[in-house]
């Protein structure tokens, strides 16, 4: 591999941190909100950049693999929304909990699953993070409860996880995510009620990317102020394209919950470049111009890059090197995901139950039996 020799730049030449202005959040039932400035160190910046870029490239690789028919079924891509999952992850602790819907690959990575295991799960191989049993919408890891396919169903689950957090008394919180489409689900309002009644440490987060499948928010919701829809639950509306804005808001929200004040709601205003899923070109209900405008003016990775370069937290060359490293990692992960074998047939019957002695599971006819091991 050829490396371009740049003018020697000592790392001591870089600033160690910088302060940035971030957008003020709209508030609902809150006297004050998150700060309007954020401090970011060089290390933090490089970490956020690398993480977002990894997610971006991973999603684009998934697009490619899907078009090659190596990934099948549902595939809901997250490119454009990277600042959300990264900003949230860096604001909370690994011991906190996260649950989201089906646009989950970014969160799966942010919560610690390696790219190769995510891609191998998408390609349905035994090296996938859940051995090929789940696929795109059902990936899990410690303190990450998926990956949920039924719109809105993950919201009561998240409040339940928060209930367990409160019960165990270890000061943990649960981030419970849903989209602008799901925001109109009845079970979410049932959950708001119980979370507020019982003061559950649940941070409701609406990722508003302006479209629920092909329906724009104006055509789906009588009130598009999603941060107010929790009514009696305090809310904030956050610039979801700015990783620092998301980070500060999430820190604020987590403090609110940890102080025992009950649930809180964050609306992250964000955008997805892809259509709803790989079956949706994403241009029948929105214009190419709109997509292009977001890309050129609000791309979360570009925003971060410009900030870092302009404040001398990093150089363009350094960030390019990270890009190269990320591309390499994704290529290797894709290699693995396309060459790893499919799960053995025996896997079909496994994991019906947890902690259960082995038993037999019926196949397509009475003579075909599979052993089921926990």
């Amino acid at each position, binding site marked *: 591999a050829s490396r371009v020799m740049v003018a020697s730049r000592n790392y001591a030449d870089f600033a160690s941190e910088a302060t940035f202005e971030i957008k003020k959040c709209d508030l609902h039932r809150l006297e004050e909100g998150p700060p309007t400035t954020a401090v970011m160190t060089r290390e933090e910046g490089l970490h956020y950049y690398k993480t977002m870029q990894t997610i971006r490239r991973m999603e684009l690789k998934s697009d490619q693999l899907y078009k090659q028919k190596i990934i099948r079924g549902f595939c809901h891509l997250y490119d454009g929304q990277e600042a959300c999952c990264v900003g949230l992850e860096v604001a909370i602790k690994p011991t906190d909990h996260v649950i989201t819907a089906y646009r989950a690959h970014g969160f799966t990575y942010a919560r610690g699953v390696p790219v190769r295991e995510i891609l191998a799960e998408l390609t349905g191989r035994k090296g996938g993070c*859940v051995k090929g049993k789940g696929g795109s919408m059902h990936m899990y890891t410690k303190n990450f409860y998926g990956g949920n396919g039924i719109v809105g169903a993950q919201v009561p689950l998240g409040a*339940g996880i*928060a209930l367990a957090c409160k*019960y165990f008394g270890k000061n943990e919180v649960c981030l419970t995510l849903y989209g602008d489409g799901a925001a109109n689900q*009845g*079970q979410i309002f049932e959950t708001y009620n*119980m979370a507020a*009644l019982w003061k559950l440490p649940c941070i409701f987060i609406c990722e508003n990317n302006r479209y629920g499948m092909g329906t724009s928010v104006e055509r789906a919701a009588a009130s598009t102020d999603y941060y107010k829809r929790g009514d009696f639950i305090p809310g904030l509306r956050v610039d979801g394209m700015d990783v620092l804005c998301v980070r500060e808001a999430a820190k604020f929200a987590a403090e609110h919950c940890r102080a025992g004040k009950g649930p809180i709601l964050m609306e992250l205003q964000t955008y997805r470049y892809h259509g709803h899923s790989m079956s949706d070109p994403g241009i029948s209900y929105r214009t190419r111009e709109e997509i292009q405008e977001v890309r050129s003016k609000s791309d979360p990775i570009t925003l971060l890059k410009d900030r870092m370069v302009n404040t001398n937290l990093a150089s363009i060359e350094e960030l390019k090197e990270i890009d190269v490293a990320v591309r390499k990692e994704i290529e290797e992960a894709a290699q693995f995901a396309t060459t790893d074998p499919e799960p053995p047939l025996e896997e079909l019957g496994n994991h019906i139950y947890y902690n259960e002695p082995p038993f037999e599971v019926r196949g397509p006819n009475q003579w075909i039996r599979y052993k089921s091991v926990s």
Partner: protein
Amino acid sequence: ALQISRGLWKKYGDKRVIDTPISEMGFAGIAVGAAMAGLRPVCEFMTFNFSMQAIDQVINSAAKTCYMSAGSIAVPIVFRGPNGASAGVAAQHSQCFAAWYGHCPGLKVVSPWSSEDSKGLLKASIRDDNPVVMLENELLYGVPFEMSEQAQSKDFIVPIGKAKIEREGTHVTLVSHSRPVGHCLEAAAVLAKEGVECEVVNLRTIRPMDIETVEASVVKTNHLVTVEGGWPQFGVGAEICARIMEGPAFNYLDAPAVRVTGADVPMPYAKILEDNCIPQVKDIIFAVKKTLNI
């Protein structure tokens, strides 16, 4: 409302006994989430008719998660409550869900009849690390049963997945679950006077079903009558018949297996109509005599 948890709140308090608003989908989902995060919740539906509001959480969130996560997430939850016909509560409050929940891999479904069943199966269900649907019966709540010393002991459990022979017999096998088990025993007492000895099998568990006990009984008696409160199509009896046909017991049947079920209509209100929509002792006796050709 039916006082099953009477005294529990006094003993364990707000932290462990939670009264919920009438939001089944919400609270069932909350209970499932709590189970995923390490608690062992018991989620009560006032009756299983209301579980239909929450059925997505029972099936898609609870039953399937262990499988989808390749065993990394367990859901040790119990959904319990009264199931099936009551008395005069009409169509929307009288449905039996044994077949609906029994259909789904990933769930366990139990259906107690006696006090021993209720206590032992509830404890076994709570200790089980999997989602269990426990289908109780409102009309049985007020019925007293004898309980052995052993059954009254602190750690007594009834294993999930094992049927019990409530009455031994030689001429015909009656297989049932929940309240109709009592009707089968009454029918057996009447038939005994006519020299017909019924073997009464109490399934106790709908899923995983103990078909081996039924098969062994049919091999012995050569005749099978299933009895359930639910509707006939795609019901528990239909499943038993299909499995008997697939197994060794088929060759021992001297007559086709017969099902006694709830009438294939939504439950009417008027007493005379309602009484004729549930399997009565006389219906069981009639079916036995038809099977035995007497």
